[in-house]
């Protein structure tokens, strides 16, 4: 009897594990994680001993490989005089935005927000990716994030909850991006 119970429990755990694995390995999950990985990698470059910026170009190129030439992106304001989101049209203009992040921000740490079924499970559990097939072809994904970054010039650190909406075309490239960051707060030591 005891053996039967233990075997049943093992099977049950294995089934839960398989289900979790399937969700974590879904194409949509991979798309979301790849986008965040490329974003977070934008500060992984260095200065040479003779004062040259090394590696930033490759990181920007790598991020830009994800985008279609006619991409339309809505991103948070990145200019002191700008109020509200900025609409960017075309890959070259998105590249300028990406370059700006790479050159002005450090310690980038955008993470997928987790969730469990319970009412308070906001920082553990599943990394949920919402996805849909687009009527005109391709896939749309959406996910909640927490964005954390520091300014390169003075190391001031900021944090913001946010959401990302990405539409991939049948070509696998990003045709639309919407990055929303709300309530940007400076992180200060107590």
């Amino acid at each position, binding site marked *: 009897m005891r053996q039967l119970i233990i075997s049943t429990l093992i099977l049950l755990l294995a089934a839960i594990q398989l289900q979790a694995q399937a969700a974590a390995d879904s194409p949509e999950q991979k798309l979301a994680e790849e986008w965040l990985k490329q974003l977070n990698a934008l500060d992984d*470059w*260095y*200065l040479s*001993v*003779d*004062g040259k*910026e090394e590696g930033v170009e490759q990181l920007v190129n790598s991020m830009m490989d994800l985008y279609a030439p006619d991409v339309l992106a809505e991103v948070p304001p990145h200019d002191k005089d700008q109020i509200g989101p900025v609409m960017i049209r075309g890959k070259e203009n998105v590249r300028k935005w990406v370059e700006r992040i790479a050159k002005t921000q*450090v310690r980038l740490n955008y993470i997928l927000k987790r969730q469990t079924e319970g009412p308070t499970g906001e920082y553990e559990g599943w990394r949920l990716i919402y996805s849909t097939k687009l009527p005109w072809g391709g896939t749309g994904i959406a996910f909640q994030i927490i964005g954390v970054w520091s300014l390169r*010039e003075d*190391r001031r650190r900021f944090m913001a909850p946010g959401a990302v909406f990405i539409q991939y075309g049948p070509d696998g490239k990003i045709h639309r991006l919407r990055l929303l960051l709300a309530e940007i707060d400076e992180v200060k030591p107590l």
Partner: protein
Amino acid sequence: MNRQVVFIVIVIAAVFVLATAFAQQHRPYNQIMKDVGATFASLKKNLDANSATAAAQDAAKLEGLFAETEAFWAPFDTKDAISFAKRARDAAAAVGAAAKGNDIKAAQESYSVIQKNCANCHFSHREETGKGFLIKP
């Protein structure tokens, strides 16, 4: 005659431009840091031994090295690194002044300020790879 004058003026101007360009070249950053490390260790040794004259010489050398450090960071938008170098340079000057006045205690206090700024800058801008260091922007 006029041609000779013009030629001499051009040569002098060219020499001046080349000399200025050469002067603006930085030494490799790792060399500056190695010199800082060695001089900083020497300064500590001399302060502990109450050798005020030798300590003042080390402090003067450090002042120059931190000026080089500041110049390395100046072209970048990295104000914190520039500030660390500047504060370390000021502290080195204070060590020198105190040592010249034979005030070893005050020199030791300013020495600690240098140490603190070095540590803060390394925390933000130095990355250990196991084989050496990388300079974080």
